[in-house]
């Protein structure tokens, strides 16, 4: 049974690798992409139905999949459950370095979406105080990698703390209920925790936030460049709208993520920068600076060439003609 399933999988893989080259002209039946609370433009795009409009003449259905975090988006991409997914840059690099076939032709934002959070009455005052403490973070996401890099700043590593793996929303609850001492948060949960429970940001560093990467499955990008370009154009439309109407975009985020408007405003207006959508030297440099943590903490196989993975991940050319 198992072998047969494998063979079928293999046959399906061969077939799907071979087919689109011939069937390229045929319209897609379904375009699958994610939306996430950490990507306000994805929410705007979904709310206004611009993609559905764009693809209606082709008869292509748009399937929206919710990503609770970069880890989920990358897992779906790796398993070819979605074609286009949003994640943090360093999380995308981690997946790419471990063999996930993805490329990033578009940056959806430059956020400061993560920081280390403690309760308002916490005795923890500095990074060094975190030694031996219990810290929640979602593995495979920017907050987790942010945590590891922050610890490194204080000369600590992941063995010096007790890491508790919880999805972003659960991490917030665990912090506020006192089940963990600190939490590597993610907006909007982090902003909500600050405004609602008075949680304090123990350590922030905008340079340790590694951008919002819009990743496309390598094979989809190669065989469906037109469709990908049309999605990116729609993202551009959502980006322009969001920049022109940040208050409205925050309202959409507040409704979707079920957070108060003040929380959404903090995330969209003060902690997101939508000005630079084309991947470029800035992003490559940020990934190069961040990459060593993946090796230092044994998150990639020994001997992985991270620079090659960065080059394979970041596509600086594809979106150039699409960006206004």
């Amino acid at each position, binding site marked *: 049974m198992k072998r047969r399933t494998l063979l079928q999988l*293999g046959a399906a893989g061969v077939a799907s690798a071979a087919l689109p080259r011939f069937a390229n002209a045929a319209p897609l039946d379904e375009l699958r992409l994610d939306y996430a609370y950490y990507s306000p433009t994805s929410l705007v795009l979904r709310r206004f139905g611009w993609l559905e409009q764009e693809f209606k003449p082709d008869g292509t259905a748009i399937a929206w999949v919710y990503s609770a975090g970069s880890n989920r988006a990358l897992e779906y991409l790796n398993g070819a459950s979605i074609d286009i997914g949003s994640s943090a840059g360093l999380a995308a690099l981690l997946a790419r370095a471990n063999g996930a076939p993805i490329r990033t032709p578009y940056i959806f934002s430059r956020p400061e979406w993560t920081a280390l959070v403690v309760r308002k009455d916490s005795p923890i005052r500095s990074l060094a105080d975190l030694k031996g403490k219990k810290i929640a973070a*979602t*593995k495979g996401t920017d907050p987790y990698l942010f945590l590891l890099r922050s610890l490194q700043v204080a000369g600590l590593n992941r063995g010096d703390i007790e*890491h*508790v793996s*919880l999805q972003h929303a659960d991490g917030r609850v665990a912090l506020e209920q006192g089940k963990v001492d600190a939490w590597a948060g993610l907006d909007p949960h982090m902003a909500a925790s600050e405004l609602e429970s008075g949680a304090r940001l123990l350590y922030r560093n905008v340079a340790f936030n590694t951008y919002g990467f819009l990743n496309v499955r390598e094979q989809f990008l190669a065989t469906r460049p037109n469709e990908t370009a049309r999605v990116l154009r729609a993202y551009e439309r959502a980006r322009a709208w969001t920049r022109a109407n940040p208050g409205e975009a925050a309202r959409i985020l507040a409704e979707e993520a079920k957070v108060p408007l003040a929380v959404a405003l903090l995330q969209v207006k003060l902690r997101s920068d939508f000005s630079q959508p084309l991947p470029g030297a800035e992003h490559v440099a940020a990934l190069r600076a961040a990459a060593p943590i993946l090796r230092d903490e044994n998150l990639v196989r020994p001997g992985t060439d991270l620079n090659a993975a960065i080059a394979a991940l970041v596509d600086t050319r594809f979106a150039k003609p699409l960006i206004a």
Partner: protein
Amino acid sequence: MNTRLLDLPKDAVKDAPAAPPLRARSRPGWKHALLLPLLLPLLVLAGAEIAVRAGLVPANLMPPPSEVATTLAWLAGHGLGQHVAASTLRVAIGFACGAGAALVLGALVALHRTSARVLDPSLQALRAIPSLAWVPLLLLWFGIDETPKIVMIAIGAFFPVYTGVTSGVKGVDRKLVEVGLLYRLTPPALVRRVLLPAALPAILTGLRNGLALAWMFMVAAELIAASRGLGYLLSDGRETSRADIVLAAIVLLAVLGKLSDMAMLALETRLLGWRDGFTVERA
């Protein structure tokens, strides 16, 4: 009372492991003992290796077995022992609690009519709850430390053992009990010399199933919020796109589950040595 009825169960009342099996079972040859059980796994492994190397299956979905082996070797030098020990300890404690409670409650329900009326319907209802449904509640009540994991494993181990005990005792031949009563055995002696030996096969099967379920619930518990353990390792591999780590954890779970099951089986064979059960005749 006719004498034949008296003669028959005399053997069963004796609580020492009695007569050796009537027919000595022939020792299986090495082919049967080693080669046949390994045939299927080896074929699957070889098939997977070839399929990935030939590019039939993408390596990011199905890492070749050789890579999983490399990963296991690497992990062995990087804290694998700690994960295995943490998981094994959780299973041991959880199983001990769950199975212990099940033995007590099962015996109570099986031997005491009122207790059965009060307890059994509720316990049967609880049994129907799927393991994952407990997760949010356990997190809420017991936090994210060891307690919810142990409780979860104990819940998993409880029901097979409980069912084994109750159905085992219910299945004891009424005639055996009557004979015990005829011999004027006191209630404790009746339990020890008649009920327990007769119900033992079902109880041991329950314990064995309970242990298997304890391993399963352990993974469910560790997937949620753990800092170490095989479930943690598994989710670590998942979240970092390392299917090889996921597979390595699965292999270890299979090995540990099999080892503990073999230990249980050995105990069963030892305790039930008096049984002359049915075996498939070998050609």
